[in-house]
C-alpha cells in the first residue's frame, strides 16, 4: 500500500483570460461550439497542471480554445449532440473536488462480490485514493499520475491518445490533475482481476470529473482490468475520461468497462491502445443507465501478428443516448481484429455505432471482422449505425455486417407455446441476444454482476 493524497486546489482567482478575439472569429463556423469552451471555468486555472506535462497540457489547451467542441454539423458527432447536452444540463463547469468521507459513503454500494485477494484500485472523482485501494504490490505497481517522474510522464501520458484528435480528449488533457498509472511488470501474469473503481460524486464546487488512466503492460504480461464508474448520487455530472493502454510484445490484456450510472450522467470517454507484436487486447464495454454516453475506442495494431478485440453491449431506455465510435488500425501483416457490438433500444432511446477499420498497405493477411446487431423495442427508439472500412492492402479478409430488427414474433410464440409467460419469454430472448456479448467476460465475479444487472434491466427476475 502506498499512501499519497493530493489536496484539491479549488478554483483560483481569474489568472488567465481567454484569447477572446480569436474565439469570436472562429465561432462563425457552425461545426464548432466555442460557448462550451468558455463555460469551463476550470480552464482558467489549469496552470501549472502537472509538473512535467506542461507542454502537453498547454498544447491541449491551445487546441481546445482554437478548435472548440464539435457540434452535430461535424461528421464524427453527427448523431450525438453531446456538446449541446453538456452545455444545457450541467449546472456548473468546474471540477468536482474530492469526495469527503468516501470510505463511509461506499459502504452501502452494490459491487461485484469479488473473492479475497482481488486487486482493488479506487479513485475519488478522478484522484487516486490509496486508503481504499488494496492490491498485491508484487503483481502490479500503481502510482498516482501526479507523482510520476518527468521521464515516465514523458514516455507515457499523451503518447497514445493524441488530444488533437478529439476536443474532449483535449479537455481532459488540459484539466486532469491526477489519475492512475498501472504498471504490469514483464512476464507477470496477474491472477486476480484488477478493479479500477471510479467513485463519482459532484460537489458544490463543480460537476465535472476528469479521470485519467494509463496502463502499461510490459512484455509477456497478462492481466484483466475492470473499470467501473460508481455514482454516489444522481446529481448532474459530466465525466470526461481518457485511458491509454500500451500492450507490449506478447502481453495479453483484457479490459472490461461498465457504464451504469443514472439519468443525469453524461460521459465522454476516449480510450486508445497500442498493441505490439504477438500481443492481444480485448475490450468489452457495457453501457446501461445514463443521460448520454460517447465512447471513442481506438486500437492501434502497431505491429504484426497481434490481435485486437472490441465487444460492446448497450441496453437503453428512457431518453438515454449511447454512441460508440470504434477505430482499429491494422498497420502490419498478420494481425487480427474482431468486433461485435449489440444494442437494445427501448422507449425514446438512441444508439449510435460507428466502426472504422483501417488496413494499411503493409498489413497483408489481415483478418478483420465487424458486426453490429440491434433490436429496437419501441416505435420511438433509434439506431444509427455505420461500418467504415478503408483497405489499402490487397490480400486481406475483412467482413462487416449490421442488422436492426425487432424481437422475433415466431420465436416469442414458440417460447410461449411451452407455457412461458409473455414477459418472461421476451426477457429470455433479449437476454439471449445480450448474452453473446456477456460471454466475452471471463472474470467470474464481474460476469455474474453484469448478468444480474443486465437481466434486471431486461425485465427478468429469474
Amino acid at each position, binding site marked *: 500500500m502506498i499512501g499519497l493524497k493530493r489536496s484539491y486546489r479549488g478554483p483560483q482567482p481569474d489568472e488567465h483570460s481567454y484569447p477572446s478575439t480569436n474565439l469570436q472569429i472562429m465561432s462563425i463556423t457552425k461545426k464548432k461550439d466555442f460557448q462550451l469552451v468558455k463555460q469551463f471555468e476550470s480552464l482558467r486555472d489549469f496552470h501549472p497542471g502537472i509538473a512535467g506535462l506542461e507542454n502537453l497540457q498547454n498544447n491541449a489547451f491551445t487546441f481546445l480554445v482554437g478548435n472548440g467542441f464539435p457540434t452535430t454539423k461535424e461528421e464524427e458527432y453527427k448523431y450525438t449532440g453531446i456538446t449541446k447536452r453538456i452545455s444545457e444540463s450541467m449546472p456548473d463547469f468546474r471540477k468536482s473536488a474530492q469526495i469527503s468521507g468516501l470510505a463511509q459513503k461506499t459502504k452501502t454500494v452494490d459491487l461485484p462480490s469479488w473473492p479475497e485477494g482481488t486487486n482493488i484500485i479506487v479513485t475519488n472523482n478522478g484522484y487516486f485514493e490509496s486508503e481504499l485501494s488494496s492490491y498485491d504490490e508484487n503483481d502490479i505497481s500503481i502510482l498516482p499520475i501526479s507523482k510520476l517522474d518527468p521521464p515516465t510522464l514523458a514516455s507515457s501520458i499523451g503518447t497514445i491518445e493524441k488530444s488533437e484528435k478529439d476536443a474532449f480528449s483535449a479537455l481532459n488533457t488540459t484539466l486532469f490533475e491526477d489519475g492512475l498509472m498501472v504498471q504490469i511488470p514483464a512476464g507477470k501474469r496477474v491472477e486476480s482481476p484488477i478493479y479500477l473503481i471510479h467513485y463519482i460524486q459532484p460537489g458544490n464546487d463543480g460537476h465535472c470529473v476528469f479521470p485519467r488512466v494509463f496502463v502499461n503492460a510490459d512484455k509477456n504480461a497478462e492481466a484483466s482490468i475492470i473499470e467501473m464508474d460508481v455514482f454516489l448520487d444522481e446529481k448532474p455530472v459530466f465525466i470526461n475520461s481518457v485511458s491509454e493502454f500500451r500492450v507490449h510484445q506478447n502481453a495479453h490484456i483484457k479490459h472490461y468497462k461498465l457504464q451504469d450510472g443514472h439519468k443525469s450522467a453524461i460521459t465522454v470517454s476516449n480510450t486508445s491502445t497500442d498493441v505490439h507484436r504477438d500481443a492481444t487486447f480485448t475490450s468489452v464495454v457495457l453501457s446501461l443507465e445514463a443521460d448520454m454516453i460517447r465512447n471513442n475506442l481506438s486500437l492501434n495494431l502497431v505491429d504484426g501478428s497481434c490481435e485486437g478485440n472490441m465487444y460492446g453491449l448497450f441496453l437503453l431506455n428512457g431518453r438515454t443516448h449511447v454512441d460508440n465510435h470504434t477505430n482499429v488500425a491494422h498497420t502490419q501483416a498478420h494481425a487480427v481484429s474482431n468486433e461485435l457490438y449489440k444494442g437494445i433500444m427501448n422507449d425514446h432511446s438512441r444508439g449510435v455505432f460507428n466502426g472504422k477499420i483501417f488496413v494499411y498497405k503493409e498489413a497483408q493477411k489481415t483478418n478483420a471482422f465487424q458486426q453490429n446487431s440491434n433490436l429496437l423495442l419501441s416505435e420511438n427508439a433509434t439506431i444509427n449505425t455505420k461500418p467504415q472500412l478503408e483497405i489499402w492492402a490487397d490480400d486481406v479478409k475483412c467482413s462487416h455486417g449490421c442488422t436492426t430488427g425487432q424481437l422475433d414474433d415466431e420465436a416469442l410464440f414458440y417460447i410461449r*407455446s*411451452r*407455457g412461458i409467460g409473455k414477459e418472461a419469454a421476451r426477457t429470455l430472448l433479449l437476454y439471449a441476444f445480450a*448474452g453473446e456479448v456477456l460471454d466475452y467476460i471471463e472474470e467470474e465475479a464481474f460476469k455474474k454482476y453484469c448478468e444480474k444487472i443486465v437481466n434486471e434491466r431486461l425485465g427478468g427476475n429469474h
Partner: protein
Amino acid sequence: MLSIKNLHASIEGTPILNGINLEINAGEVHAIMGPNGSGKSTLASVLAGREEYEVTEGEVFFKGKNLLELSPEDRAREGVFLAFQYPVEIPGVSSTNFLRTAVNQVREYRGQEPLDAVKFLSLMKGKMKLVEIDQKLLSRALNEGFSGGEKKRNEIFQMAVLEPTLSILDETDSGLDIDALKVVANGVNQLKSPDKATIVVTHYQRLLDYIVPDFVHVLFQGKIVKSGTKSLALELEEKGYDWIKEELSGTSA
C-alpha cells in the same frame, strides 16, 4: 376433451378455416390429412393460439374452458402442446434452461411447487431415454444448428417433459427419414395414455403406420370433408386427394 364448433379463422383478411367441427375424447388419436393449403397447419396454429390468425366465428372448448380466450402460454399450462412444423432456432437460450423455465411456469400455474435443479435433471434424464435424444443436443442452444430430424425429436422431447393432455403434431413427420420417423413415432406412442389425446396433422399416410389413429379426417378448403378410420388414410395414399375433390364437386353440383 376438445370440442371445436363451426370454427372460422382468417389471416390478414383471407379466410382459411371455413367451419371446422371436431370432437376429440380422451384416449383418442385423430389424424388430420389433406392436400397442401387445405388449412391443416392453420387449425393446429389456431388451437395453440398463434396470434396472426383471427378467429372470425365458432368456438373451441378444451376441458370445459373456452380455449380461444386463453393466451398461448395459458393454453400450454392447461395442457395443450403444439409440436411445430418448423421448430424455431433460438440462439443463446440453452435447451435445458428453457425447458426448466417452462416446466416451472406450468407447475406454478397449476399450484405445484417448482422443481429444483436436481429433480428437474432426473425428470429430463427419464424423458431423454424415452425419446432417444442425446444429452449433447440439450446442452446446446435451443434448436440452433440442429438437423431437421433433431429438431423434430426435440419437439417430442419437450412434449414428453411437459406431459400435455392434448398433443398436436403439426407435420412432425415431414422431412424425416424412416429411422427418424420411427423414433419420433415411438416417443409419441410411449406417451399415449387413456386420459390424453393426440391430433396428428400429416401430409403422408406413412406416419400413420407408426402412430395408429382412431379417426382420420380429411381437410379441404378449410372444412372437414370426410371422416373415417385408418382405412381412409390408406385409401388416400392409394388414390390421392382427387377423388375426394371430385366427390365434393359431384355433391355440390
